[in-house]
């Protein structure tokens, strides 16, 4: 296992980077959603993350977990459609896992992500392979767990590898049939399209690596 830990300041960077990616890609993500869905994904996601940025200073920053729980509340309340509960659950489950913590090991991060994936699957009913953001998150968690088990390399190297895995998932899943969310209504026509949630997670993961390297 890599020896370093992720500090609270670095977790803050992770969240704010995710927010920036969502806000900067508002039109792009909606466009991807428009291919097979109802073209509101980018707008919904950006709306939630804009509130996260606007209210950031007022959040409870006494621990990583408390801040993530406040992020979760803001996302859930301000993100339209099912994206609110789905992305809110990502931050709620990690927030609950990291309560009282001011730094995280790679093992902690894998545990938190696994809990988030389980929560999102329960909430939205998605399974692995349904062509949703769960597939991208699972690719990240699996890659991070592998790095953790190998005990080789730095935390940042593990993140970079995981981001590549998320990026690879967008291409892998392109040929799949969407089985959940609005995209699923189109059945086989969803083959050869990108799932906007998977793309967003991949873009966020790449941006997080860049931001943490800076």
């Amino acid at each position: 296992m890599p020896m370093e830990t992720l500090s609270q300041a670095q977790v803050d960077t992770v969240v704010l980077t995710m927010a920036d990616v969502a806000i900067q890609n508002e039109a792009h993500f909606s466009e991807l959603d428009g291919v097979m869905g109802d073209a509101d994904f980018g707008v919904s996601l950006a709306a939630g993350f804009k509130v996260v940025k606007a209210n950031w200073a007022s959040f409870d920053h006494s621990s990583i977990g408390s801040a993530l729980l406040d992020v979760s509340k803001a996302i859930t309340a301000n993100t339209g459609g099912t994206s609110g509960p789905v992305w809110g659950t990502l931050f709620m489950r990690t927030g609950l896992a990291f309560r009282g913590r001011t730094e995280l090991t790679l093992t902690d991060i894998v545990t938190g992500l696994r809990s988030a994936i389980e929560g999102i699957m329960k909430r939205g009913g998605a399974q692995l392979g349904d062509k949703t953001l769960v597939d991208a998150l699972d690719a990240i968690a699996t890659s991070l767990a592998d790095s953790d088990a190998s005990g080789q390399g730095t935390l940042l190297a593990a993140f970079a590898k995981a981001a590549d895995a998320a990026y690879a998932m967008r291409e892998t899943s392109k040929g799949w049939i969407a089985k959940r969310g609005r995209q699923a209504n189109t059945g086989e026509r969803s083959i050869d399209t990108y799932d906007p949630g998977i793309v967003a997670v991949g873009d966020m993961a790449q941006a997080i690596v860049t931001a943490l390297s800076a």
Partner: protein
Amino acid sequence: MKKFVDDPALFVHDMFEGIYLANQDTLEWVPEYNILYRKNMPQDKVLIMQGSGSGHEPAHSMIVGQGMLDACCPGNVFAAPPMDYVLECTKILARTPNKGILHLINNYTGDRMAWDMGKEMAEAELPDQEIGVVIVNDDVAVQDSLYTVGRRGVAGNFFVIKACAAAAEQGKSLAEVVAVGEKVNGWIRSMGIALSSCTPPAKGTPIFEIGDDEIEVGVGIHGEPGRRRDKIRPASDIMDEVFTAVANDLPYEAGDRVAVMINGLGGTPISELYLLYGLAAKRCAERGLVIAKNYVGEYCTSLEMQGFSLTLCKLDEEIEGYLNAPAAIPIRVF
């Protein structure tokens, strides 16, 4: 759109302010989370809360009181409460020593997710607090719809609240109150008809278009499409269809006792509601159903929509007893 409103975005807030100012002897108000709760919260009983959207008044913001809800936390007009409303409302109830907290949830996808999350957060923050759930889904009109997987929860919700609350006041355990709620939910069947649309203040335009001579058969309480669009017909014809759909959905035997509700959707005069009740009562008699309780008025509305819904609730001695138990809430004593 013509409405009595100041800032449309503050419509729900301003309504809550009015409810609170009119009932300061019995209610407390938490404006940030649309929460109203009982001022003298009774101790050592199951405490019951419900949210759903606003725009369905008197459900749920005007039915907090003895023998009905202990607290409510509805979202904006026709919007599920955000999960922190559910969390904060649960935390307020948990301050009073209790036999458990019951979340009553109408079956809509957004509500299910928000309450699921709020419950999960509450359980993490209050590890010793027992929380139970009853899902209400009484609408026979359609199986899945715009905002649901499965049947929608509509006006039959009243019977679940009334029975659960009476059971709770009698000191029943959380498991017993949940069982009462599930039993009543299994015995309520509803369907609605709309003559007109309605306009959420912050939206400013009607939620759907409907012609002067048209009706929506099986309309949802957020204006969701029902079974079909039809032409206006005599009330007897409409009641024939609605009564048959509702009564045929549950096996009834001659001699069964029922409660009958004619619920106004917000813009229907009481005269028409009683006319409809007469038609429903005659059809009950034809089937040999004994009307033990009747409810005619507004219980679960869609703002100013013209229309009604019929609910039949099958009764046994236990449930009839709960419906007859005393209650005191801002708008009506049952």
